[in-house]
């Protein structure tokens, strides 16, 4: 740094150009801006009085240097105003002759270094949200396009411009978290390009800032009375509060003189009643996700679609440790906690947005208007403030953008259950959630895989049980007989290989019972005859034995061909007289109908008999068939102890029913979520959704 002392050309007081990069210095006596032009000095205007701000820096402060920053001195201060706010930018001179701008933004400190300007569009061609490829500097998103007035200054400035000049600029957000500024000055062409990164106060290494920390602590709360209604107000963020909407009378308070935090709040708009009562009162404190928050204020926003107006609430929170501003949005009883993210780290397309590798699907886009405000705010909030709000979701996370003509801002966060919010702020009367929230996670999101894992493990165990049962089961054929039709007229069958099958069948069957009715009654006589014939068809088997209590597989086969045979089977325990009765049917029909061949029925069928005890058994068979169509034979086989595959199949089906129900639950949940969206779940715009921003895009 090379200092040069001189006399003010306006008042003659001593002025000092304290750095080689100093082009203009402000006379501390008469506030003239004095430019050095070669060896001559020229007064190019007079700056206004400095507006008090909450900045911790002062001209003359020095940094001893840190690992993050080489030593520097603060040699000047530029004060700019957009009409909505006034802020400082500090001219920093390095020992090597370089300079930078030190600014305070987004709750942090930014050292903006001048770089060679890249080719960029003219200022009038820029729009918030626009993506700019700055070549070797990387890709940046336009966060803000504004013009600001050079209001005041002190110390040295590295440029020559008369006080009151209007500067056009665009603030950029880089993909790596950096910030950029395109400085267009007062003409269409680019005058300067600055890129910086965020630094903590400690990383700057500036001496003498301990007192500033104390001041911030002391300014964490400030009590005052509403100048409109006299109600007691307690500001939780007095160092940054620009507007207060009185929670007692609703009047909007702020400073009339400046745009920064005022020394004295005056009534800007008088109201007689609070426009709305937020469920979480401003001033409430509570911890969400382990972070302590203070509720500063609440905005009621609205949008109109298809003639209907929809409202939601956005609470402005201040994280107590980092002092960063977050948002708690509430819509239909669903809460989402959001924090600002650099726009340069977001890539947005028509259907999706990507942030830190995660992809979010577009959910809604609307014109959002501030309908009412309550509490304190760090900007000059006003009713009617309008933005285009776009929400992208990847439940439970949400990515939102709000853009206006001048700026674009992104926030990202996650769904917070209503009960968590109620517990955090001790407000049990929060709205009850209705429907499915935009970012509300499906209740089984984190556990559905465990359902499937449980089903798989149990299914594996069931298969093991089946294999073990199959290995240990006797699977023994205890009865296998074939019966031939020996009397086609009376439909009598006899066991193959026995004398009865060779013509002496009557020996096997019992004698016909005597008719029970009077011979003179023809109906009774016919019934008695039929009964006697039926009794003669009954076959009793030789005894057979089962060695273990087990199930029994009973099979029948018959060469049925457009015919049928129905065998009533009774297994009779010789020892106890206990019987088990069931039917075995063989039937098969086929033909051609209208040129189409058809068939139905089965020649063989199986019946399963439950838990047949060990012991000696007799099988009683009672075959019935159709005269003239009787199959020439049928075969009955009984197998003891056969693991039943269908039981395993049913077990597996039942095991997987609940996990499959979860799939339907998920589909239903997503259907209800996207029914509330302006877009389909694939990102397409829903016909007649009423998304009311088409004309703006």
């Amino acid at each position, binding site marked *: 740094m090379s200092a040069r002392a001189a006399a003010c050309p306006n008042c003659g007081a001593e002025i000092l150009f304290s750095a080689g990069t100093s082009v203009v210095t402000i006379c501390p006596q008469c506030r003239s801006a004095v430019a050095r032009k070669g060896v001559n000095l020229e007064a190019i205007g007079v700056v206004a009085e400095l507006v008090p701000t909450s900045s911790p820096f002062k001209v003359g402060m020095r940094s001893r240097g840190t690992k993050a920053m080489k030593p520097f001195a603060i040699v000047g201060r530029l004060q700019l105003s957009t009409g909505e706010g006034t802020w400082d930018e500090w001219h920093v001179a390095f020992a090597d002759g370089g300079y930078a701008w030190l600014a305070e933004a987004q709750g942090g400190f930014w050292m903006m270094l001048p770089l060679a300007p890249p080719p960029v569009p003219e200022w009038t061609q820029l729009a918030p949200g626009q993506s700019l490829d700055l070549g070797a500097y990387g890709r940046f998103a336009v966060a803000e396009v504004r013009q600001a007035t050079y209001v005041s200054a002190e110390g040295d400035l590295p440029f020559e411009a008369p006080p009151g000049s209007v500067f056009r600029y665009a603030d950029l957000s880089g993909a790596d978290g950096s910030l950029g500024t395109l400085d267009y000055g007062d003409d269409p062409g680019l005058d300067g390009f600055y890129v910086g990164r965020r630094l903590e106060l400690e990383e700057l290494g500036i001496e003498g800032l301990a007192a500033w920390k104390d001041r911030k602590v002391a300014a964490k709360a400030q009590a005052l009375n509403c100048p409109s209604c006299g109600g007691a107000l307690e500001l939780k963020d007095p160092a940054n509060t620009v507007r207060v909407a009185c929670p007692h009378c609703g009047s909007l308070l702020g400073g009339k003189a400046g745009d920064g935090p005022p020394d004295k709040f005056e009534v800007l708009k008088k109201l007689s009643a609070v426009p709305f009562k937020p469920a979480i009162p401003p001033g409430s404190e509570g911890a969400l996700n382990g972070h302590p928050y203070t509720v500063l204020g609440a905005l009621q926003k609205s949008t109109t679609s298809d003639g209907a107006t929809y409202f939601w609430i956005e609470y402005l929170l201040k994280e107590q440790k980092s002092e960063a501003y977050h948002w708690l949005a509430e819509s239909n009883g669903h809460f989402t906690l959001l924090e600002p993210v650099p726009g340069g780290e977001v890539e947005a397309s028509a259907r999706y947005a990507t942030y830190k590798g995660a992809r979010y699907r577009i959910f809604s886009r609307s014109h959002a208007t501030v309908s009412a405000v309550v509490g304190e705010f760090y900007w000059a909030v006003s009713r009617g403030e309008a933005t285009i709000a776009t929400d992208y979701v990847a439940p439970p996370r949400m990515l939102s953008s709000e853009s206006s003509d001048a700026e674009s801002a992104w926030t990202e966060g996650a769904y917070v259950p209503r009960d968590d919010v109620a517990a955090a702020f001790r407000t049990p009367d929060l709205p009850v959630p209705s429907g499915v929230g935009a970012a509300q996670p499906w209740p089984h999101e984190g556990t559905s895989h465990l359902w499937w894992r449980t089903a798989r493990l149990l299914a594996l165990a069931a298969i093991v049980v089946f294999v073990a049962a199959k290995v240990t089961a006797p699977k023994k054929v205890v009865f296998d007989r074939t019966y031939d039709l020996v009397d086609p007229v009376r439909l009598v069958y006899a066991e193959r290989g026995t004398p009865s099958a060779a013509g002496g069948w009557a020996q096997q069957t019992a004698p016909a019972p005597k008719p029970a009715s009077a011979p003179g009654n023809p109906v009774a006589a016919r019934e008695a005859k039929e009964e006697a014939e039926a009794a003669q068809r009954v076959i009793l088997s030789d005894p057979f034995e089962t060695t273990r209590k087990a199930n029994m597989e009973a099979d029948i086969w018959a060469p049925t061909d457009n015919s049928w045979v129905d065998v009533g089977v009774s297994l009779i325990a010789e020892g106890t007289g206990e019987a088990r009765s069931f039917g075995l049917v063989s039937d098969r029909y086929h033909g051609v109908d209208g040129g189409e061949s058809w068939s139905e029925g089965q020649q063989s069928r199986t019946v399963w008999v439950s838990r047949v005890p060990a012991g000696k058994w007799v099988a009683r068979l009672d075959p019935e068939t159709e005269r003239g169509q009787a199959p020439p034979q049928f075969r009955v086989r009984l197998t003891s102890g056969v693991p039943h595959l269908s*039981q395993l199949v049913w077990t597996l089906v039942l095991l997987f029913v609940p996990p499959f129900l979860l799939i339907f639950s998920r589909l239903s949940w997503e259907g209800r979520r996207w029914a509330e969206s302006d877009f389909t779940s694939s990102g397409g715009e829903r016909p007649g959704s009423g998304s009311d921003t088409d004309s703006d895009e």
Partner: protein
Amino acid sequence: MRRIFQAFGGLLLLGYAWAAFTGWETGGAVKHETLPQGARNAGGYRTWHFWSGGK
């Protein structure tokens, strides 16, 4: 809910194992007692047609 499903699945597995090893089946056969005359008949069930008329 997941605990309920685990309990349901466990009971289902136990039920299946019991059915598989004891031979339990659903339906298929009607269990009943035979008439005592059948057992008392000299030829037992094979020779005394106690089922006359299927009753």
